[in-house]
């Protein structure tokens, strides 16, 4: 009897609360109508961490807190000595080298997929470099601002090489396994509907360990995820990479880009240009092995990039970074091509879309002047 009374009271209280919440719906829709109003309300509410001052805060603290992960071969894993190794890990170091002059002044914070935006919103990390796709919804609702993509990816499907499946048709009505926490299930379902194929049975696991076990035991016919993730997993597959085939179909656009908090233009620009200079360096042919000689280059572009005084003047574009930040980045981490070759090329993924624009790819940075 006591419990029944309790829950009646509870139900009444919940109904009141819900009523209050739905009442706020009108307020929420008002806020969305003011397009630029989002930033204003955040600054005015005052409950935020000093969003405008992340650059200053980071330079004061002397360390960049970089949100990442520790289980994706090629992008971010832990090696035997506990160091973070990978494409995203290197870009974390790029940001640290640019902002603080020291590529090792970075604190890697391993995050779960569910957690990555919460950590960014709450100020637990300064920048999120965690193979995260730039989408409209995330720009809008996750309180995040995405910067220039470092890797153009897409969702793909991986099958066992001896399964005889050569395209998505072969998976109609079969079993597909995905890692939960993102929109992967939705993308698979949408793609199969678009192609008019019978919907597969989709299994969604929280832990990659169980997923891999299920895939190895032939519980699933296909494993769907971002192609970069699939490549990494394939390279570490126990039976060898040849045992797996990544199908040709790419059924979503997944530009992977670093993200910072909304409303922090100075920090966003600093991070963006830290990334841009790695691309510019590759465009100009400057890499970590020849950067010292390039300091004496006659190409004014190279001189400007490396912060060498050209005709007595050093370019300081007012980003809040040291004039030679590009030099630090290239010396301590390398240019885009080196970062790619170090981490992604061993997995067998060609540059493809991720090649320089001069080679037909999408990697293009604005000029440093």
């Amino acid at each position, binding site marked *: 009897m006591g*419990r*029944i009374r309790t*829950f009646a009271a*509870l139900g009444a209280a*919940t109904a009141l*609360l*819900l009523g*209050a*919440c*739905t009442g*706020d*719906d009108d*307020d*929420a829709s008002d*806020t*969305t109508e003011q397009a630029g109003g*989002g930033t204003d*309300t*955040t600054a005015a*509410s005052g*409950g935020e961490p000093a969003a405008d001052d992340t650059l200053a805060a980071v330079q004061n603290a002397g360390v960049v807190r970089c949100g990442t992960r520790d289980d994706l071969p090629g992008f971010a894993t832990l090696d035997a000595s506990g160091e973070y190794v990978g494409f995203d890990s290197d870009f974390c170091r790029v940001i640290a080298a640019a902002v603080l002059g020291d590529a090792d002044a970075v604190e890697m914070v391993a995050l779960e*997929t*569910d957690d990555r935006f919460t950590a960014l*919103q709450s100020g637990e990390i300064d920048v999120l470099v965690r193979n995260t796709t730039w989408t409209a*919804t995330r720009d*809008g*609702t*996750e*309180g995040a601002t995405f910067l220039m993509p470092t890797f153009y990816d897409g969702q793909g499907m991986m099958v066992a090489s001896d399964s005889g499946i050569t395209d998505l048709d072969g998976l109609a*009505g*079969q*079993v597909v*396994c995905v890692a*939960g*926490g*993102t*929109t992967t*299930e*939705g993308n698979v*379902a*949408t793609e199969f*509907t678009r192609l008019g194929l019978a*919907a*597969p*049975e*989709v*299994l*969604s*696991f*929280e*832990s990659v*360990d*169980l997923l891999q*076990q*299920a895939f190895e*035991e*032939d*519980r699933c*016919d296909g494993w769907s995820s971002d192609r970069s993730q699939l490549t990494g997993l394939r390279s570490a597959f126990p039976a060898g990479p040849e045992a797996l085939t990544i199908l040709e179909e790419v059924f979503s656009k997944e530009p992977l880009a670093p993200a910072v908090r909304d409303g922090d233009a100075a920090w966003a620009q600093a991070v963006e240009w830290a990334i841009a200079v790695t691309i510019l360096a590759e465009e100009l042919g400057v890499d970590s092995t020849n950067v010292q000689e390039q300091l004496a280059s006659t190409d004014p572009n190279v001189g400007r990039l490396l912060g060498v005084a050209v005709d007595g003047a050093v370019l300081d574009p007012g980003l809040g970074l040291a004039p030679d930040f590009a030099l630090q980045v290239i010396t301590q981490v390398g240019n885009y091509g080196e970062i790619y070759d170090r981490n992604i090329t061993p997995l067998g993924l060609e540059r493809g879309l991720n090649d320089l624009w001069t080679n037909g790819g999408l990697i293009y940075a604005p000029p440093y002047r």
Partner: protein
Amino acid sequence: MIATRTSRPPLWRDVRVLKWAFQLAVLVAAVALVYVLVINVNRNSERLNIPTDFGYLDNPSQFPIPDSDFRQTQPVRDAVGQGLINTVRVSVAGMVLATILGTLVGVARLSTNWLVRSAATAFVETIRNIPLLLIVIFSYGSLAITTFPRIDEAWEPGGVAILSNRGVYVPALEEAPPFLGVVAVALLAAWAVSRWRREVADRTGTPSHGGLLATATAAAVLIAGWFAVGAAFDVPVLEGRIASGGLRISPELFAIGFALVIYTASHIAEIVRGSIQAVASGQGEAAWALALSPIHRLRDVILPQAFRIAIPPLGNQYLNLTKNSTLGAVVSYYELAQVTSISVGNGAPAVPAYLLTLGIFLVLSLVISALVNVANRRAAVVTR
């Protein structure tokens, strides 16, 4: 008694006033706490343009659910419903099987046979002391998907079932409702027959053979009804790598079900053992003196009394089992927690989605507690 005028103490010392002041303060603090939480949720949600109402329930869910008719174009509220059905399915089956297994093991723990007793004790002491999550993960990775062969080499015993590591398919009834009616009639007939035979036995003293005749009657009715209703079996078919039809037990369901059953059974075994030991020993001795065989002694004298004692803790275990079924999400069994987790990953707002799930579990707990209370009251000893 000297009658004195009771003088009112000053307000700040008057216990009645203090009591109400204290309660008012507690109430204000509680309301303020809830208010602050709600304000924070609303403010944070507005800041990130995330809705705080339940409108997301009408959005298409975008993920399919296996072993059901659920398509990804159906709204999220249907997904939640299907998740709830799966939760109830695994919980009810788990409760029944765990009770049976737990009772057997509990009785075995009191056996006179040292080997049986030790084996039962080892089972209980091992399973009870390891985490359920470990059992679930082990059941999936090392049992469910490895016991039966892969779909290419699936076993097809008798051509009517399919055993593979993608699921166990057994023949199911087509058009269940009419046949359920037949089953009901059969049970009624069996009950009537056993009543009649018992009366005959009481009157004339001849053996009643009630059980045998009742079973025979039920079987006769079932067979007659089968043909009368025209029921048929839905036999599973394996075409290439796709199996369809029949009743399917997926490896995910098996893993979470198996883990829940043996874990809860080990707790139930302890409860049953304790309640059997709590039944006065005089009962067992009296049954022995009446020359009842051990099985009859257990079944007719001791267990009924033991179960009366065991009902509240058993109810507690059933509640735990229902709440533990949420671990199905770890092995991708689409019960309520998994459905919620996937919806949130695919864009549903987190706070309302999880509050809804928690609310549904509260209601489930309430229902189970109420049922257990009813059973408790009905089994209670009527005292003068």
